[in-house]
């Protein structure tokens, strides 16, 4: 039991700096007067909040899925690639982390906007067309979310692949394993943990975005955090904001529990 002392620092931080303030605000919002806990049940009844939440989940699932594919490819290259590619990948793959997300969004706007690069090329090739509408669309939001998630996914996967010794791979090759077999039977299982963590992390941050969807989606894509932020900062309806957050938290935890159990059974 003395090993538990290593858990102590975080438990202290968690209790004092997280549980305490958040429970206080939730209590103050929901418990302090009689009207407030109406909001709690309003949230489930509200079509708006349900729809926005499902919308958010949908976008996040799609973005996370694409990110995991791309992140896996990059992570693989970061660990197993030839020396030059390794350098290249590990540098550029991580670069988006170093630049503030808001600035990256503006970088994307320069690329995708009507007067931006892609459209300039399109107009040069196809003459005087209206150009492609890539910005202010749902696709742009997905692109933004994937872009911001790739570094985390890549690093997470690379971390778990670092331990795989190439000797194991050579041994498998010598024993006649094919391309697919090596990947599915050796690399994928070992990098499993990294993939799960990466997926979890990217999904969570995707669900939490509120500025990015409104900038890239042209205000047509509303995420749940946008609603929460409106209630916290614009209309000061903290009870509603707390209620939405609690339901969101509970739903996400339930979702993860269910998905994790399914994944464990599938990959047994």
């Amino acid at each position, binding site marked *: 039991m003395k090993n538990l002392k290593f858990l102590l620092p975080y438990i202290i931080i968690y209790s004092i700096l997280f549980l305490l303030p958040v429970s206080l605000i939730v209590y103050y919002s929901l418990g302090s007067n009689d009207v407030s806990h109406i909001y709690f049940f309003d949230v489930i009844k509200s079509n708006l909040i349900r729809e926005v939440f499902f919308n958010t989940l949908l976008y996040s699932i799609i973005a996370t899925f694409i990110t995991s594919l791309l992140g896996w490819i990059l992570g693989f290259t970061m660990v197993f690639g030839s020396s030059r590619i390794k350098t290249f990948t590990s540098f550029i793959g991580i670069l988006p982390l170093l630049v503030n997300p808001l600035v990256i969004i503006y970088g994307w706007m320069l690329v995708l906007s009507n*007067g*931006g690069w892609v459209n300039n090329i399109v107009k040069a090739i196809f003459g005087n067309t209206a150009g492609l509408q890539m910005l202010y669309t749902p696709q742009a939001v997905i692109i933004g979310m994937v872009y911001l998630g790739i570094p985390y996914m890549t690093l997470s996967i690379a971390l778990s692949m670092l331990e795989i010794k190439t000797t194991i791979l050579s041994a498998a090759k010598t024993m006649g394993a094919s391309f697919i077999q090596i990947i599915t039977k050796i690399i994928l299982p070992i990098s499993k943990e990294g993939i799960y963590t990466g997926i979890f992390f990217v999904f969570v941050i995707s669900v939490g975005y509120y500025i990015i969807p*409104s900038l890239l989606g042209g205000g047509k894509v509303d995420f749940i955090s946008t609603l929460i932020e409106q209630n916290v*900062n614009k209309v000061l309806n903290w009870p509603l904001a707390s209620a939405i957050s609690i339901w969101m938290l509970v739903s996400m935890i339930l979702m993860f529990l269910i998905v994790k159990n399914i994944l464990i059974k599938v990959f047994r």
Partner: protein
Amino acid sequence: MYRKYFYLVFLGFLFLFAGCNKKTEPELTFCSWGGSYQQAQSKSYLQPFAQKFDIKVNEANYSGEFAKLKGMVETGNVTWDIVSVTQSIFTRGVKEGLFEPLDFSIIDTTNMMPGTVNKYGIAHLLFSTILAYNRDSYVNSKVPSNWKEFWDVNHFKGKRALRDTPIGNLEFALLAGGTPLDSLYPINMDKAFKKLDEIKPFIRVWWVQGQQPPQLLSTQDVDLSTAFNGRIWKARQDGQKLNLIWNQGMLEPEYFVVLKGSKNKINSFKLINFALQAPQQTEFVKTMGYGPTNKLVLKNLPDSLRLDLPSSDINIKNQFMINGNWWADNEERALELWNKWKLSK
């Protein structure tokens, strides 16, 4: 091994001390929106005030975090003295009791325009939400000159953008439907949303931040958009080919308030008084293109600038002033309906 911990804690305390403010001279904190707006405020009145009265003015900035204002006042830790706030924060803040009543023996309001002075705050500028367009998009076609024409997508072509908020859009929808300028309030929300239904499929972008419209218009991602007049004015100064239409625009004030519990009330009132004087307002107006609230300012401006200001006589008569009180009572409900409306097919 434990030495590491001691170093960390020690380092921490060092910073704790470094973070404590040592106030030895009179000073106050002015909080505004940052960017070039606050730079203009600083140059026009904050720095001159500091020099003239030998009072240090700290500058803070925020992005409309109402929660922070409320939190400060309620926990008794008021670190901002004067804040520059929008109409919605103002009326809501007054309701929540977040501001100090102003001392009019220190603040001289004799030259202020009617409607700009309130017990808890004074409007220091007027800005308009108007329709703007890119001249290049309309070389051969007609530009809408009012909201009815904006709604008429068949006769007036162009990709459109509106602000992502019910504020202003409800009024514009009513105007498009024929409601006269002086009968907008109280707003019939059902009617407004029905009218908005007509234009919804044609809105390319719902903009959120003030600097989006000039961007959208200059790259022609959009041909017509509502915008804040000052932004379009600045874009034109920067050489962008944008025009704006004053007709049926919405005027909105921006207020100076003093947070309740501020420890520098007297100096804050002095600063507000100074900032509202004609020379200071003139300086600000010249840099940002927003409308002054001091009557004397308009007289001394060159004609070219006067034409560009929301509160000049020519431009003001075709606009309407936002009704802050109505919005204070109805913003929450309107926002909820707005969100639902945006999601609906």
